[in-house]
């Protein structure tokens, strides 16, 4: 699994767009980029996964530049309930990988009123 680096913490206010960037300089050709969200004392929740360009779902958007050495999770118009830790994971999600998630240090997002 490629090593990832993301900010330890971020602050935002309700209604703002939040962008969390993750660096993964050693990403391999077959690697996918996956983001998880975790609320205190709850299990992580899958948010979004992508390989290149842009992926959007009902929760977030994921922007991946052409060199794929970084990715940005974009949360539109955050609310207090978006306060959580966000994890960026990079790895081969298909084929020979065993699939166990290697969580690094996530980004603790605090949304204020």
């Amino acid at each position: 699994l490629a090593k990832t680096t993301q900010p330890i913490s971020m602050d935002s206010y309700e209604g703002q767009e939040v962008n969390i960037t993750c660096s993964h300089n050693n990403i391999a050709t077959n690697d996918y980029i996956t983001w998880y969200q975790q609320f205190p004392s709850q299990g992580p929740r899958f948010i979004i996964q992508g390989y290149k360009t842009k992926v959007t779902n009902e929760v977030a958007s994921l922007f991946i530049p052409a060199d794929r050495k970084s990715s940005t999770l974009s949360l539109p118009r955050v609310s207090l309930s978006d306060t959580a830790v966000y994890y960026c994971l990079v790895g081969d999600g298909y084929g020979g990988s065993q699939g166990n998630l290697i969580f690094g240090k996530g980004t603790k997002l605090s949304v204020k009123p």
Partner: protein
Amino acid sequence: AAGVIQSPRHLIKEKRETATLKCYPIPRHDTVYWYQQGPGQDPQFLISFYEKMQSDKGSIPDRFSAQQFSDYHSELNMSSLELGDSALYFCASNERNLGQGIYEQYFGPGTRLTVT
């Protein structure tokens, strides 16, 4: 929609006792993963099972063992408990057979184990 079920939700044990945690994956999911999250720590992968066979092993102590049964539920057995085993234990599942991205896992609510 059905979710991953874990039992018990809370467990208090004394040092050197044993504990058994249970996980019931989402129906039709064939792969189960176990993770441990200590206080203020990030989740750490312990072990996984695919079609009732051990698939991968992470930082699981030798005092711990696990298995997946014919109905796909899984149990994590922990013996000679230590204070440092106090943590949240999460089970996750997905359906690897149908090519579901193995990094898209569905987590249960966790079992909070306290060792005194």
